């Protein structure tokens, strides 16, 4: 059976006139392209930004088609290390067009540049300055600090969420084309709950109306309870319950998170799905190998390794599932992502404190952490006066003292442990 065509693809606009919403932004973009190169004071690049599903990518594609320009597009699914970018767009930026046609370089999803896309930001900034053709970039978050260098060189064009008044008539047309009797109120709910994300509205409409040929308020309300993480839950469910390598890998392609984040989701939730201990051992081993490959790929810039890592983290985990219980499993957000962010600041503080101890006691910071800090905390717990004196001797400032005090009462700290059973 061939897969059902996704409506967001089926009804993807190919001309600017077909695009719903953001008329003003699109007008500005067209003007900018037309005037490109003629006004020395104008910005050399354009950065279009806005939430997902509001038509940023389709606008650029349609613009190229309407204006008869070649479009050279690079998005987050491409390897965007400096070397690769040079190969893909470098030539296009410098040479004249073979067919005498103008062209546009389009770098989509640039706020998704990963740290592995080494040197990419610098290169893109350079590219914008010296390209012989307009360079358009798209991002969800134009204020992402990582792309500051790029932003400076760009005209900023904001794409806004699609308003209900524009979205509902559009949804209505689609519903009619698909032979669905849609309650206008239901479409309104759908539009409201998807907060201006037209693509998500289409996806919901397709999923919720696929069985019957009617679309009611109740249907729309079912969509209302879903949120962004729902997609990831479904992706996980499909990966964990896949019966073949193929379906496990396909499931991954539906995720709207990058592979590193998906890894974290799988790694967090594997113990819940692999209820059998030996299934879990096999699954965790597959994940450990995937992790190693990801890291080597990153370090050596050997991107070919990533595909094996993805095999292991999807198919490898799915195939580990032999004896585990079937059935519904609750899933949770990767806890360590949140924890790592929280701990980053704390780690810096910890290093500061350990640095002072290390200097005073002729030790490395690591040795200060295991050989002095726990004793110091014990002293602080028993005798605040002595701790105060020692803090002065070590030269801790107020902030450092507060930090150390917080460690005394930290959960899981020695002394705060529950007594063992039996």
């Amino acid at each position, binding site marked *: 059976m061939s897969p059902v065509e996704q409506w967001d693809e089926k009804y993807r606009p190919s001309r600017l006139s077909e695009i719903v919403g953001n008329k003003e932004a699109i007008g500005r973009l067209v003007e900018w392209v037309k005037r490109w190169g003629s006004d020395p004071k104008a910005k050399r690049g354009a950065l279009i930004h806005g939430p997902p599903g509001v038509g940023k990518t389709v606008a650029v594609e349609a613009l190229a088609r309407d204006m008869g320009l070649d479009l050279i597009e690079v998005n987050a699914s491409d390897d965007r290390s400096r070397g690769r970018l040079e190969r893909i767009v470098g030539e296009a930026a410098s040479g004249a067009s073979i067919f005498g046609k103008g062209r546009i370089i389009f770098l989509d999803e640039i706020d998704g540049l990963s740290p592995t896309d080494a040197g990419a930001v610098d290169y893109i900034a350079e590219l914008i300055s010296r390209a012989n053709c307009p360079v358009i970039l798209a991002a969800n978050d134009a204020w992402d600090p990582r792309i500051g260098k790029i932003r400076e060189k760009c005209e900023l064009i904001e794409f806004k969420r699609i308003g209900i008044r524009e979205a509902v008539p559009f949804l209505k047309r689609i519903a009619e084309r698909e032979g669905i009797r849609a309650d206008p109120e239901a479409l309104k709910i759908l539009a409201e709950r998807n907060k201006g994300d037209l693509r998500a509205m289409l996806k919901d409409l397709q999923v919720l109306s696929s069985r019957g040929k009617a679309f009611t308020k109740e249907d729309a309300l079912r969509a209302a309870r879903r949120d962004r993480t729902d997609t990831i839950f479904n992706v996980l469910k499909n990966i964990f319950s896949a019966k073949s390598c193929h379906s496990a890998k396909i499931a991954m392609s539906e995720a709207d998170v990058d592979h590193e984040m998906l890894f974290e989701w799988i790694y967090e939730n594997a113990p819940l799905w692999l209820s059998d201990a*030996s299934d879990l051992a096999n699954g965790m081993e597959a994940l450990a190998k995937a992790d190693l490959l990801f890291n080597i790929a990153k370090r050596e810039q050997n991107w070919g390794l990533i595909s094996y890592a993805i095999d292991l983290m999807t198919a490898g985990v799915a195939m580990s599932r032999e004896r585990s219980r079937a059935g519904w499993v609750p899933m949770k957000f990767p*806890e*360590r992502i949140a924890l790592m962010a929280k701990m980053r600041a704390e780690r810096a503080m910890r290093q500061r404190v350990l640095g002072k101890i290390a200097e005073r006691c*002729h030790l490395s910071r690591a040795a200060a952490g295991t050989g002095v800090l726990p004793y110091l905390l014990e*002293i602080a717990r028993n005798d605040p006066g*002595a701790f105060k004196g020692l803090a002065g001797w070590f030269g801790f400032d107020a902030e450092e003292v507060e930090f150390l005090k917080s460690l005394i009462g930290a959960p899981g700290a020695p002394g705060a*442990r529950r007594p063992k059973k039996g």
Partner: protein
Amino acid sequence: MAEAKHVMWTEKYRPRTLDEIRDQVEVVSRLKKFVEEKSMPHCLFAGPPGTGKTTAALCLAHDLFGERFMDLFMELNASDERGIDVIRTTVKEFARAATISEAPFKILVLDEADNMTGDAQQALRRTMERYTDTCRFILCCNYSSKIIEPIQSRCAIFRFSPLKEEEVKDFLGWIAQKEGVKITDGGLAAIARISEGDLRKAINLLQASSTLKGEVDEDSVYRLAGRIEPRYAKEVLELAMKGNFSESRKRLRALLLEKGLSPLDVIRQFHSEIFLSELQERDKVLLAEMLGEADFRISQGGDPEVQMSAFLAKLASLSLGPRG
């Protein structure tokens, strides 16, 4: 200037001169000869933590150069600054600058030298040779086998042995008396036993016990030590062995992220706990192999938590066997 009332006793009672060092008799007598001759070779001080390596280096410098020895002395911690860059810049600069006073050379101490990367050690080898006229190196390490041979062959080697329980007890007794710590003989013996010849650990334990209420005895020392150095790894392993992988991973996560333990320390603890456990002998070998694999993968850039989790999941499956 009045001495601060509260200081770490390890520093307060750290010997200042070779004469003040009570233990490591043989090492000290050889070092004293250097002082008499006003000359010394490059040295390698090898021995477990808390046996006086850094102290000996400080005392040697003091006895050679007098009170103002810090001008001619530099201490670098190779664990914190172990890259080749430090060897090529900081070390080289210090080593190459000629001495201003009448002292014939300077001393550079590289602590925890066994944590230096291989290429940093290679770089060091040439530096040691080139600047031997102006600078003598003292390398301190736990394991001399981790120091590359060409460096070993350029050094006089001194082995520091763990202090005997009696020696530790004597030293502690002396400090306890000076500080007015109320501690029983059993308490002192317990500290000496727990610290396993590591005098720094022993003194830190004594200082921590001095803040307890009332007289310190054997029992309170053990409770204190348990609070200070809980066997974290044991807990994590026990949870995995009971088949509770999720909770075990959660504790591991807390150790790495919240307590900030180094992954290598945790792996090392796992390693010793495996062989103390009641697992089947065959399984202990299997787990040691897996742990070695995890250690290796972490050294290759693998994520510590992910790699150790694979090990814990395996442990959980072994202890339970296939579920019926």
